[in-house]
């Protein structure tokens, strides 16, 4: 059984006011295609990188897996559970660190984590919450209000919230954007430990040196399509270049060319 599976997933966002235009018999614009027949599978225990320029469709893909957005066509599943038909099981299997730095200003760090744990039906979860707080360097902030935390600390709480129900699959959507070296190191050490313990990790990042160091396999998205999918080493060997950043730039330029071929395995 795969940890994550996407079969021919497409997503077209309807233009605003499309409903009104339809009501009055006017043709609306075609909408924005964020994903175009994406198929992908991630095996249990993989550390998988999902790379692409801004607007490539990474967050749409994650949102479909998380049930935040419905796919226009195709099927997505987490740990074998369909994200629509078996949404309860699929969501229990998935932990998502959102890209935006969002928080609830009414609560302390510990309250935030207890609430998130309770949403998953886990009401006596303080041992695990304490372990997460310790591992993410948040133990001394447990009783601080979320508003009082720095940006980096808020980012750590976002990671903690995603882990609070011990999901087999963890999705990190640009978790190190705008954070200091200390958090990056702490975060990657903890995430690597979870990965070694069997958790499947799916990472999107614009820091390609992180992806190169951490990810066993990488997919590159452009304009909603997968333009490269292979192990990190194979990608580097195939495309050339001194590092993943160089390979990324080459692949994106190749994808721009009219006669480009998908570089997939």
């Amino acid at each position, binding site marked *: *059984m795969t940890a994550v599976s996407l079969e021919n997933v497409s997503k077209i966002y309807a233009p605003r006011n499309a409903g009104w235009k339809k009501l009055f018999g006017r043709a609306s614009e075609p909408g924005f295609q964020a994903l175009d027949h994406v198929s992908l599978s991630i095996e249990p225990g993989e550390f998988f990188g999902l790379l692409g320029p801004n607007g490539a469709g990474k967050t749409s893909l994650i949102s479909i897996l998380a049930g935040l957005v419905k796919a226009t066509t195709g099927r997505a599943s987490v740990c074998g559970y369909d994200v629509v038909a078996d949404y309860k099981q699929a969501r*229990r299997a998935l932990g998502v660190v959102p890209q935006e730095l969002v928080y609830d200003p009414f609560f302390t760090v510990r309250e935030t984590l207890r609430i998130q744990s309770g949403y998953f*039906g886990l*009401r006596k979860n303080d041992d695990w919450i304490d372990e997460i707080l310790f591992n993410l360097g948040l133990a001394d902030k447990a009783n601080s209000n979320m508003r009082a935390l720095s940006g980096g600390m808020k980012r750590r709480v976002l990671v903690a919230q995603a882990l609070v*129900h011990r999901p087999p699959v963890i999705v990190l959507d640009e978790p190190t954007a705008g954070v200091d070296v200390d958090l990056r190191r702490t975060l990657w050490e903890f995430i690597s430990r979870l990965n070694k313990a*069997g958790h499947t990790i799916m990472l999107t990042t614009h820091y390609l040196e992180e992806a190169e160091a951490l990810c066993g396999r990488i997919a590159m998205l452009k304009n909603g399509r997968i333009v490269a999918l292979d192990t*990190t080493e194979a990608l580097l060997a195939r495309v050339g270049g001194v590092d993943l950043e160089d390979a990324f730039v080459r692949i994106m330029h190749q994808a721009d060319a009219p006669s480009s071929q998908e570089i997939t395995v």
Partner: protein
Amino acid sequence: MSPPDTVPAQPLLQPRLDAGSGFPTLLRKELLRFWKVSFQTIAAPVITALLYLLVFAQVLEGRVMVYGSVAYTAFLIPGLMMMSMLQNAFANPSSSLIQSRITGNLVFMLLPPLSHREIFAAYVLAAIVRGIAVGLCVWLVALFFVPLWPQYPGWIAVFAVLACGTMGVLGLVAGLWSEKFDQLAAFQNFLIMPATFLSGVFYSIHTLPTFWQNVSHWNPIFYTIDGFRYGFFAVSDVSPWRSLMVVAGVFIALSLYALRLLSSGYKLRN
């Protein structure tokens, strides 16, 4: 950092499928949300109702009798209680949803396996609790001015729960629909406020011209206040059974609509 094995051979970890429902936590969170700012969510509406009571009692006490024998201040208190309950029951889910939407933390409720029924029940129950808490506080404060005791506590409880539930559902719908604070404010200022003020909070509709009496009968909020008042005075403008039918009907219809919006993911999952 060192790269892991490229083809890991790991068994698939299993999610904790045996865990319970997230509903109690969502309900508790919605209760905590208003309790943590109770000065704003409980004390402020009580002060507003008290000001109405003082001003109207000063002007009209001794000059107006309602239902033939009820002093105006006593008549006013259940109306003010219900008005405060309705407005606060509406405010609880609507302000929670719009704040979560604007700040982005709505995602924390959408990622867990909460069903649309669980979300609906948590928001509406929290609205009922806040509405009734405000109503009780208004009554307790008003007791210092007028010793007003219920004739039929059962009717009072039924109309309090149903009225707060109805406005809680309406607040949920408004919170789902609104994308900006001004859209929610428009809902409150152009629908909720006029409907509550023109529903017999300050007067018996029998004192109105026939046309406005008929208009009042199309306002569901009129029935919540009239039925609630019946519990205090054993007298009302229309039968409490008729009021019960109307309020229960509106509650059920609005609930079905709200559940449909939630299950479709309207403005939540798109």
